[in-house]
């Protein structure tokens, strides 16, 4: 039985975009295409500039239907896996709410059920969260101010890979860094089920001054259509092998 796939973009950044289109708008576009956008703001100091960053971080996640979290660099690992999992649960709950609307009525959601029934629904949500396939496109800000934080980001991604591999469903990841050398976002790892080996890609990157968050998000959204093409290809092959 195919239960469908959850699609997420995970944006790890430390501040404000300063190039290209509005990332909040791009996040809204992503949401329209069934992709949830989660944002983790890695902020070590809360100065005036970070205040603006905070606003953007929350704005992108809100528009992208995802979760935002501000963390200190050292808490990154736990946050990354927690945000990813919480966003999965949130998406599944949203789908269930829509599916059950006939039963629940217009304004009601699962949250309005009595605790006993809600408990049973939550078991289903848990079950789905555990078994559904998950595609995550990870987008890492490598602008100059992030440089010192990159080793921690690398660790956090390895930790995320480990956490998710404990699930029963399949996971696929791809990794983009922005700004890229020539393009605004550079794909460093194509869709793969294992991001345990991102170590090398992080060593090579040089950091730049600009932060084109919007264009980078757009690239990430596009990556999902590449993935569906790839899946379609597999599907066709399977079809060809079938009996005629």
């Amino acid at each position, binding site marked *: 039985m195919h239960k469908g796939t959850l699609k997420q973009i995970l944006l790890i950044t430390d501040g404000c975009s300063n190039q290209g289109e509005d990332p909040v708008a791009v996040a809204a576009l992503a949401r329209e295409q069934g992709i949830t956008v989660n944002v983790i703001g890695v902020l070590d100091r809360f100065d005036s500039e970070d205040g603006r960053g905070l606003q953007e971080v929350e704005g992108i996640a809100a528009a992208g239907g995802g979760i935002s979290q501000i963390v200190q660099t050292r*808490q990154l690992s*736990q946050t990354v896996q927690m945000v990813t999992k919480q966003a999965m*649960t949130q998406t599944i709950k949203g789908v269930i709410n829509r599916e059950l609307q006939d039963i629940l009525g217009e304004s009601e959601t699962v949250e309005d059920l009595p*605790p006993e029934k809600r408990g049973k629904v939550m078991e289903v949500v848990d079950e789905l969260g555990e078994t559904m396939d998950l595609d995550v496109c990870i987008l890492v800000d490598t602008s100059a101010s992030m440089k010192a934080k990159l080793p921690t980001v690398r660790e956090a991604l390895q930790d995320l890979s480990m956490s998710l591999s404990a699930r*029963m469903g399949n996971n696929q990841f791809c990794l983009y860094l922005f700004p890229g050398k020539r393009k605004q976002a550079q794909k460093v790892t194509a869709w793969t089920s294992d991001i345990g080996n991102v170590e090398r890609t992080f060593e090579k990157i040089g950091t730049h001054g600009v932060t084109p968050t919007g264009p980078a998000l757009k690239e990430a959204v596009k990556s999902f259509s590449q993935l569906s093409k790839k899946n379609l290809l597999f599907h066709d092959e399977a079809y060809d092998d079938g009996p005629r």
Partner: protein
Amino acid sequence: MKPMMTDRDDLRFDAGTVLTGKWHGHRYQIVRRLGSGAQGMVYLARACERKVAVKMAKDRASLISEVNVLKKLETLRGEPLGPSLFDSDDWIVNGRTIGFCAMEYLEGTPLQEALKRTSFDWTVVYLVQLLKHLQRLHETGHVFGDLKPENLMLMNPGHSVRFLDFGGATRIGRSVREYTVFFDRGYWGLGTRKAEPGYDLFACGMIMIYAALGHRFEKKGQGEGQLLQVIRTLPRLAPYQAVLAKALKGRYVSADQMRRDLLNHIMEKQEAPAACGKRSRSRANAGGGWLGAWVTASCIMTAYVLFVIVYVM
């Protein structure tokens, strides 16, 4: 798990506040705060002259999963593993809906404090008890998940360990719901985050290390080597080196197996006073009559601990 939260969900309420459940209509009057964490707040409350612990959650999903596990445990016979569940409901206050559950108020000392106050011999006793409970929990098809001293309570009479917080309890075979890095084998690179008995047993090993050392520490480089180094260098852990290494490396398949192994090592430790006697002999040249007193004291201590173990079992 304690990442910094942007605090939209403030759950602080003053003593005297009365909660009324939306569905079941039970009333609870807050007496005082018992604890708070990333997941929510726990209050001591009064309901019909009875003391209960009321847990309010920021994330209702996590509370519901805990309630589901508590309900399953209610059906277990014998000594209870955790607090019994009285009620689970919603409270609507100022237009907000807060999910809460009312549980038995466990009167005792948090293990966190007990470990600081009592001798290391007691830590081993608590661990033997803990492993007995874990065996029963695992038999229900769950692992505890977020196993750490803060989530364990030492009941006041009887010195028996009880589980306090089932928020991390996960069905075997799934991915662990909640964890704390220091007690998480994934963090130390010694296994996956899949819920299986070995996950909890690793945490048991870490509780022992934590108790012996008195504080937590961070990973430096390769986790396994670092932990084994710590085990080797702490004299208190010397008798249990083999057990700990096996627990950390995931060699035990069940809590029962680890418990038996640990008990065997405690019993063998009986010979330790004799060894100590030999060592203190050289010092005894100066001290004269110290040796006899030393050996007697050690023997009495060991006998006492053994008696307690036998009594508690």
